């Protein structure tokens, strides 16, 4: 079990610490700044899934209204970080808001990758408000079949 924990830290404790830390910092900022700003400031930010397959790990994020040029994806020391901004919705001249429920503002989410990644072949795409980052496993992290002599 301990070995498994070390292999897959995400499996046992997905983002509990990170998320609660972000929330606390967000709340602190809201308190200090008077609760102004974007809805994402005080929350954990946009939602993500992390799924591992045989040869790759896929990270999916819901980022409605976020444009490609406002997104930044980095991998460093086994941590994937997705950060960016959803611009506040624009209001045309002579228009007035009836209601605003969407979350916007800047966000940053980080994920500890469960295996070594072939960094040269990471693929990211953004379609219909969903970001998909495909992280192929490095050769040494791929499953191998051991022949029995």
């Amino acid at each position: 079990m301990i070995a498994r924990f070390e292999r897959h830290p995400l499996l046992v404790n997905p983002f509990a610490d990170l998320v609660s830390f972000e929330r606390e910092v967000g709340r602190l900022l809201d308190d200090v700044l008077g609760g102004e700003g974007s809805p994402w400031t005080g929350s954990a930010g946009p939602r993500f899934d992390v799924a591992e397959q045989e040869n790759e790990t896929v990270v999916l994020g819901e980022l409605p209204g976020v444009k490609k040029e406002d997104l930044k994806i980095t991998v460093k020391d086994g941590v994937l970080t997705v950060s960016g901004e959803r611009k506040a919705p624009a209001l045309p001249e002579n228009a007035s808001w009836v209601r605003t429920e969407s979350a916007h503002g800047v966000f940053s989410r980080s994920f500890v990758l469960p295996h070594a990644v072939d960094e040269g072949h990471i693929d990211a795409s953004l379609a219909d408000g969903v970001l998909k980052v495909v992280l192929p496993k490095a050769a040494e992290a791929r499953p191998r079949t051991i022949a029995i002599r």
Partner: protein
Amino acid sequence: MTQNINHAGAALMRRPDPMTLTVAPPADIYETPEAFVLAVDMPGAAREAMEVTIDGDALVIRAGVAPRHGAEASVLAREIHHTGYERTFTLGEGIDRASVDARFEHGVLTLKLLKSEKAKPRTIAIR
């Protein structure tokens, strides 16, 4: 031990039908002199299964979401649970039900609902 706790947690979290979970998507609405514009966040909504219907005063938006992960994948962390979107808005009398313009871009469905002629602001000329 950890495994048992995880199993217990999973059992508690389970919904009656874990295969479908429809959520009401958040919407921004603004009003111009000619129209109401609704922008509804529906990331991942499948275009072919998207439905916008007007029935009397009810404007209903429905969409499904394609499966996010392959059958072989082991999901290490899941924050996205829903499998579809559904939300109903009530239309006022001043909206022209015949002319609704819909666009789906960056995961946001934008609907433009024109006001009926009599609901548009008029400038009254002073004699």
